[in-house]
């Protein structure tokens, strides 16, 4: 029984316009097994799982799922309800929880008749409690989800799937929002469940956790399955090579002697709407020729710090100096003027105006400059020349500088922003999650530009939730937790992980 197959994906293919997201991917999953699905950003992992769950309709291929008796049956495609009923549960990277209703309501949503005049909450509660007892996934059931922590929300998501009697659980990058220690607890819980017969597909791009936790590994690259092996036979180097197609490029930064301070925050406090944008009395100094990495679990004040350095939020308390000059009124314009270059976290929402042209987006931060306007009127030719020059220098590819910026791919949008920022030779650069969602090539380009800026004498604040990225680029590491900053004494991964979790190092 343990060896029986519960899921077969047969030659699934999916394209979005010209982009091939999945090309003839086949996979099998056995009962009680943890299969890790590895691949870079954009390798097609999430698309594949969305087809399994019925969010996307494959262009070709089929899926078989075992029924309760263990007999494989074809799954009608493109219907999440059908996938749910067949025992497939999915925990998305972005939680699909309604925040204004309780965890219990989120869990039972959809499994009770909508038009019934009464609900049987007591029975539902008993059922959920039984699942909690079996799996160890605890969460407060009656609090509105908006007030739960990220870890609790994730457990609610998993409980949701188990409540629907999922026999196959898909977890999409579940550890991205957890501390290493929280992740370990999650893995323990998953083990408890697989011992009871649950099968798990686990999407990740973190090699270490995959090697320590899964039974089997499948690797996707450019939408194709390029390898599959038992975890016991795998090693980090060979998998990395499979994922990237070549050996992982090492970012050879080397060390540099830090120069004068270019940014200093002293006693800066922001009381934000939530924990993610709150800072409590933060001190921070960044020097020229220095990349400072801000490590931390998502939502611990990174947004607050980024908002202050971007000039989006005026702190209630504290002093901010850029290049030794105190910034009185803090706003984006004053920070730009002071020589701060900002790479925003959400490049679509804050980085570009999608409906405006690439050329216009390239000058949007310096509308006052005399080569952009004269007497209030735009100098179209100069703006276009500027864009052509920058597009060439920074390799921004797309349908041309007069086309709307939204037509660019994610990587090219990021290059547009890099071009706009680096072209002004800023004294300080704030890079907030600069490689999130980019493919390896574009991510490496971002890293190269940051190192180049450091070479030139700029200071860089690199905020990232990817500890590997920080370890690869930063000269100095500071951990952010609960809106406070703590200097990391060294570069020890374990120790930084403990600091991120708030345990005494």
């Amino acid at each position: 029984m343990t060896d029986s197959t519960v899921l077969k994906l047969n030659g699934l293919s999916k394209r979005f316009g010209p982009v091939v997201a999945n090309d003839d991917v086949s996979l099998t999953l056995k009962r009680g097994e943890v299969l890790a699905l590895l691949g870079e950003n954009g390798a097609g992992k999430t698309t594949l799982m969305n087809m399994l769950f019925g969010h996307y309709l494959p262009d070709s291929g089929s899926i078989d799922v075992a029924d309760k008796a263990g007999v494989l049956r074809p799954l009608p495609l493109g219907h999440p309800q059908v996938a749910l009923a067949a025992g497939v549960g999915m925990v998305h990277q972005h939680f699909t929880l309604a925040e204004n209703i309780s965890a219990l309501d989120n869990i039972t949503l959809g499994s009770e008749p909508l038009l019934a005049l009464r609900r049987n909450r007591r029975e539902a509660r008993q059922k959920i409690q039984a699942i909690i007892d079996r799996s160890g996934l605890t969460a407060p059931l009656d609090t509105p989800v908006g007030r739960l922590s990220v870890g609790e929300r994730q457990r609610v998501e998993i409980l949701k799937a188990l409540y629907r009697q999922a026999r196959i659980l898909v977890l999409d990058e579940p550890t991205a929002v957890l501390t290493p220690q929280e992740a370990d607890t999650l893995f323990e819980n998953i083990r408890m469940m697989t011992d009871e017969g649950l099968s798990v597909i686990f999407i990740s791009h973190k090699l270490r956790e995959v090697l320590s936790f899964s039974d089997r590994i499948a690797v996707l690259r450019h939408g194709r399955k390029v390898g599959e092996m038992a975890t016991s036979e795998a090693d980090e180097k060979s998998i990395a090579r499979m994922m990237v197609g070549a050996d992982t490029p090492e970012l050879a930064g080397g060390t540099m002697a830090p120069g004068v301070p270019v940014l200093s925050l002293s006693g800066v406090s922001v009381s934000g709407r939530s924990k993610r944008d709150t800072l409590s009395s933060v001190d921070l100094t960044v020097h020229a020729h220095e990349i400072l990495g801000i490590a931390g679990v998502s939502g611990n004040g990174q947004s607050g710090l980024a908002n202050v350095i971007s000039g989006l939020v005026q702190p209630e308390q504290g002093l901010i100096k850029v290049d030794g000059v105190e910034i009185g009124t803090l706003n984006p314009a004053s920070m730009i003027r002071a020589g701060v270059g900002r790479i925003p976290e959400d490049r679509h929402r804050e980085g570009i105006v999608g409906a405006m042209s690439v050329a216009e987006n390239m000058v949007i931060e310096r509308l006052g400059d005399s080569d952009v306007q004269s007497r209030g009127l735009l100098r179209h030719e100069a703006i276009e020349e500027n864009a052509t020059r920058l597009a060439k220098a920074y390799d921004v590819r797309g349908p041309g500088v007069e086309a709307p910026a939204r037509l660019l791919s994610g990587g090219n949008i990021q290059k547009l922003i890099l071009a706009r920022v680096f072209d002004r030779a800023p004294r300080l650069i704030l890079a907030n999650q600069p490689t999130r969602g980019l493919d390896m090539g574009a991510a490496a380009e971002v890293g190269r530009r940051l190192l180049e800026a450091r070479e030139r004498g700029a200071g860089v604040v690199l905020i990232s939730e990817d500890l590997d990225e920080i370890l690869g680029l930063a000269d100095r590491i500071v951990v952010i937790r609960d809106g406070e900053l703590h200097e990391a004494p060294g570069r020890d991964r374990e120790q930084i992980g403990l600091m991120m979790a708030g345990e005494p190092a």
Partner: protein
Amino acid sequence: MIRIEPRQTQSRAFTLGVPILSAIIALGFAAIPLLAAGANPILAYQEMFRGVFGSVFAFSEVLTRATPLIFTGLAAALAFRAKLWNIGAEGQLYLGAMAAVAVGSGVLDVHGILLLPLIVVLGAAAGAAGMVAPTYLKIRFGADEVVTTLLLNFIILIFVQMMLEGALQDPMSLGWPQSAPILDQGMLPPLIERMRVHSGLIVALILAGLAQFMLARSVWGFRLRAVGENAAAARHAGINVNRSLFGVAILSGGLAGLAGVSEVAGLKGYLTSDLSPGFGYTGIVVAMLAGLSPVGVVIAALFIASVFVGADSMSRAMGVSSFLADLVVSVSLLCVLVGGFFARYRIVRASTARAAP
């Protein structure tokens, strides 16, 4: 299964075709209510056509009717470009008209030649003032400007009635709620002898051209477009979003105020509380039909004015209610909305689930 996919590019044919097609569909749709009223649609369309193009006078009436619609259409188009939902053009129009009669009827002793410019400036200022409070409440308290501007329309209209029975009432009106007439030197001169079309139209056309130019070519227009398309990115890029919003609010209110000035100083000569048959609201339809483009506003205003003038004359000839025009106008708005959807998205028909063997 049917899926909705965004289009990569928007063809020019679509941006032009959608409003034209919408207008045609809306006119065609009018056949249904015409039949319901027992009228012969073909005859009715003929009457409407004659009412618009039948004579120079008929067409001059269309131009007269289009003039306030260009102003209110521009007011809506500019505000909507910045995603500022000014639905209060109706009230701002009355504010402008009120200011015009207040200074124009001889209360102030102004030298003849200066009176008209003064009326225009003060009318625009009064309309602009009507947008200050809603914009402030939006920025400061997050109060939805749709609701505040809509409610202000009612407040202002009641205020107008109050003034027409009070401070602004014409002593010669024998108790009738109407203002004293604007002095002759304060009137916008007519364009054609013995016709009602007046030079307010020229002002409207110039402003439309200017708005088009400024939107595309000026830093001010750049900021406004950026704020409207993505306020978060505009703010991040150092654009003062609130200042841009205030700027466009004042401009939008001012344009609506000019619609009022143009009606009292170009056409009626005095103010009554039925000065506008909903020009402010119709301006929203004009702006949407125009795809929020200032030059498009002129064309859309001409179309809608034609519908109203044509329907009026058809109504007189055939006894069908002239509310038909309002029907056509509202249907054209709904059509252009749906058309805008097809310009931005396409519906892809994907074959449904294929059962595996």
